[in-house]
């Protein structure tokens, strides 16, 4: 199975938010830790609703947490 085209900065953002653990983020957005692990590995593209919930958890706009395709800007 190829990597998903939707990437994210979740791992970096967690560390920038007082080293939030995967479990803490999972509890905040209402998913299991396994799903956060899959998202960070790029193994899963979240639903739009979950993507918004994660962005809200970091108090950031959606496009600063998720990106589509190659993230060459970074």
């Amino acid at each position: 199975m190829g990597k998903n085209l939707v990437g994210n900065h979740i791992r970096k953002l967690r560390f920038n938010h007082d080293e939030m653990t995967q479990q803490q983020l999972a509890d905040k957005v209402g998913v299991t830790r396994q799903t956060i692990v899959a998202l960070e590995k790029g193994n899963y593209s979240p639903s739009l609703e979950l993507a918004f919930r994660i962005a809200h958890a970091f108090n950031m706009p959606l496009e600063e947490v998720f990106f589509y395709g190659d993230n060459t800007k970074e």
Partner: protein
Amino acid sequence: MTYQEKKSIVSIISAILIFVSFCAYKYVRYPEEGLESTEAFHYWGSFVLVLTLVSIFAHIVISIVFNIVFRITTGEKEPAFADELDKHIELKANRNGFFVFILGFLLAMGSLVIEQPVQVMFVTLIVSGFISDVTGSVTKLYHYRRGV
């Protein structure tokens, strides 16, 4: 390895063990002189029904034991709910499992068309049920490891 991956592996192993043990148990009770048509339907009907009940019961017991062992060995609690990733993977597992079972069902009907004994039809149906169960668990394991 995560809880879901371990659970999928346990599910595959338990499905194989239950099926093989039950078939071995029923095989020695198969009448040597063969079955008349009415007896054959009774034998295979009870085979399917008892196998279904035994499988459900054994899966429940194995699941409880697995959760206890998981808690003791890892010190973590198992996930209390299924989120969107779990549901997505469950759907894919069900789709693949049903596909395999339908294929087996068509093969079983095909065996009647080419005038095979009724036993061949029942064995094909039962084996396809077993393979579809294993296919579902393997699909889950694959997607939990490699992503969706």
